[in-house]
């Protein structure tokens, strides 16, 4: 394999590993704030128990996100020097604002949020929790701005082959940014909702009868059921936006080769780039035209439009985009069925007496958010190829000239480390859940609520 493909695989592996953890922390930060505010309002210990359990998972996820994020900021230089050299004038300020307005905020207040509960006043601790959650969201915003600009660039001009910014408002509020931002925030919310529901279900299955775990199961299911319809709506709008700006990507997602009306919705197929057609196609007539153009004879773009006259293919490889999209949608549908089914069961049996089968299914779906998120990112990022910045910079023009042997070495190194860390991460979450189940009542002291008197918290030795 050549340096280009290996570098793509390496960056893909890094960014895939990285996104798992921000996907956790973005929404988990807000969830922790919710637990903390419920505790402040009710004084009920179960909310603090929930906070204490999930803040550990937050800390672990945050650390994983930090270290894998640092890796990426270096890989821009080691593997993709052409990226910053060409679009640095746009990408640079956006990344700088991410680091300065968000990254530092989260990293500094994380220390207070994790270890400061006994050192600062309760409201300061609540405030630190808020600032960490706010920081992760700001971080998401800036990164999504840059990513969206790479898909739908505007507000710039080319001088001597280098991008120069002309209108920052256009750059920041580029056409796909609002859709992508909402889509990602909801994805994070769903990932966390299903993780919380899944881990709570696991603890119930293991015999945990605490009020905290019943409450978190309820919170997880309700959050999942509430967010999934919004996500389906946001995803649909995002897709229509992509159709407008990146039709080649949509053609690959739909597995549609010829532009025309009455395009069927392909449920399953094996796209064949050699014959430029689908094998084993199962499709609903007129479906794609109906979804994308809201009429049966709506004209839907096909992949064959994106082959230049000299035969150069200017659309992404079809199979990964096509399958990625189906995995994402399929997972989303499973989430819809499960969370709404869970809602019905909650009403009927209550969180403490859920049928075992349902608990098993929830536990099995704990990490479903990861699958959907990764599949969605693969769809959109591979779908942008052969461009790194749509229409401005081709991926092959940005890669560094280090030898392929060198990239092989580092790629294998990263993959080994990442595989080991994912196993350790899931292992630790399971271990913490088991420990919490078996009565290891982690905190043993009384927490002051926001309004309560201070003496109880001034015990630094504890």
């Amino acid at each position, binding site marked *: 394999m050549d340096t280009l493909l290996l570098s793509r695989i390496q960056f893909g592996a890094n960014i895939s590993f990285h996104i798992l953890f921000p996907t956790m922390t973005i929404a988990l930060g807000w969830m922790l704030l919710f637990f903390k505010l419920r505790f402040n309002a009710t004084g009920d210990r179960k909310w603090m128990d929930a906070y204490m359990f999930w803040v550990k998972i937050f800390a*672990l996820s945050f650390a994983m996100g930090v270290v894998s994020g*640092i890796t990426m900021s270096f890989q*821009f230089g*080691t593997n993709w020097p052409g990226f910053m050299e060409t679009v*640095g004038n746009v990408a640079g300020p956006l990344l*700088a604002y991410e680091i*300065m307005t968000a990254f530092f905020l989260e990293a500094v207040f994380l220390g207070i949020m994790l270890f400061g509960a006994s050192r600062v006043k309760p409201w300061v601790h609540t405030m630190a929790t808020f600032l960490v959650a706010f920081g992760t969201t700001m971080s998401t915003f800036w990164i999504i701005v840059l990513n969206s600009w790479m898909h739908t660039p505007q507000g710039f001009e080319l001088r001597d082959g280098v991008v120069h*910014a002309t209108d920052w408002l256009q750059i920041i509020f580029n056409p796909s940014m609002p859709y992508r931002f909402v889509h990602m925030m909801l994805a994070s919310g769903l990932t966390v909702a299903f993780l919380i529901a899944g881990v709570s279900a696991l603890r119930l299955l293991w015999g945990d009868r605490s009020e905290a775990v019943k409450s978190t199961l309820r919170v997880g299911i309700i959050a999942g059921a509430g967010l999934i319809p919004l996500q389906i709506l946001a995803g649909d709008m995002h897709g229509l936006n992509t159709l407008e700006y990146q039709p080649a990507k949509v053609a690959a997602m739909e597995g549609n080769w010829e532009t025309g009306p009455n395009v069927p919705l392909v449920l399953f197929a094996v796209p064949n780039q050699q014959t430029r057609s689908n094998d084993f196609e199962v499709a609903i007539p007129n479906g794609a035209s109906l979804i994308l153009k809201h009429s049966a004879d709506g004209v839907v773009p096909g992949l064959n439009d994106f082959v230049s006259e000299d035969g150069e293919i200017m659309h992404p490889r079809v199979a990964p985009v096509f399958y990625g999209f189906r995995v994402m949608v399929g997972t989303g549908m499973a989430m819809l069925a499960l969370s709404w089914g869970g809602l019905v069961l909650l009403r009927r049996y209550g969180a403490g007496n859920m049928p075992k089968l349902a608990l098993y299914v929830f536990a099995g779906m704990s990490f479903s958010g990861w699958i959907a998120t990764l599949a969605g990112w693969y769809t959109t990022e591979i779908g942008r190829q052969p461009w790194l910045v749509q229409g401005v910079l081709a991926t092959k023009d940005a890669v560094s000239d280090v030898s392929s042997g060198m990239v092989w070495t580092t790629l294998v190194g990263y993959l080994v480390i990442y595989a080991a860390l994912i196993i350790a991460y899931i292992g630790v979450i399971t271990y913490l859940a088991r420990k919490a189940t078996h009565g290891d009542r982690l905190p043993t002291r009384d927490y002051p609520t926001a309004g309560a008197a201070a003496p109880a918290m001034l015990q630094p030795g*504890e």
Partner: protein
Amino acid sequence: MSLFSDPAVWLPWTFAALMGLSILIYVVLDGFDLGVGLLMPLADAREKDMLVASIGPFWDANETWLVLAIGILLVAFPPAHGLILTSLYLPVFFMLIGLILRGVSFELRAKAPPRQKNMWNASFFAGSLLAALSQGFMLGMYVMGLEWTRSNVAFAMLTAVFLTVGYSFIGATWLILKTDGALQSHAIRWAKGGIWGLIMGIGAISLATPFVSARIFDKWFGMPQMLYLLPFPVLSATLIGFLWWKLRRLPRENDRWAWSPFVSATALFVLAFGGMAYSFYPYVVPEQITIYEAASAPESLLIILVGTLFVLPAILGYTVLSYYIFRGKATELRYD
């Protein structure tokens, strides 16, 4: 060159200064984090927990300075960023693996099942070691102009060892500040053992730097420039002498002077860094690309600068706040 009238001059200069500041803050702050990690094998099980506790609330934010430094290099000097990082491809990889291991082990040693704790302690140490060695190696390669010749690599291996020992030294001085009792006595012993790394490191780079190019040689030994440079070696020698003397007299009653080794070590890092910055200016890639040649378009730099002027004081402010909240001797890390 009228320095502060032309934006194509003062903006790159300002960003070089900001980048230098970030690197310096990173080297001091994560230097003591990494140094504490390097001391892990010397500590017993209970002391290991205290070692980790002493850096627990800080290390995430400390590492962020590296992201800011590399971010400024990336956004303000894109060609230099590409050139430096592609020529340091493998050491960067090893540093990243080291930082990953260190950060993750930090969390996992406390959260994974107890039987795994030794393993995560070991990987916490290994990660700190790998990161420190590769940073020292990159420092050496950078000083020698990023050319992969045999003698340069040998030199870089030396600076790798020296910086690593230097980090363990500043880590030990941090522990003197943040611990008491038996552990503090151990830390004083570790600091005595580690100070030579700092001396040799500063010495080796000082010996090599003027011979990298005639330009730097002239900057050092030409008149009157030599007089400007003179305070650096004089102050450094004074500080080293002070440390040598003070470490033999610690601990004192009421913990007096416990702060002085860390402050002196920090001052030494600042001086060494200042000397390097003075020597290499105006080059961002030694003897190849100047900061002015590598700089991004002025209008892009300006938009970052506007934000920086608002945000950097805030970052410094809440960094100080965090150190203030967790001031005093380190206590066992607890989430409640």
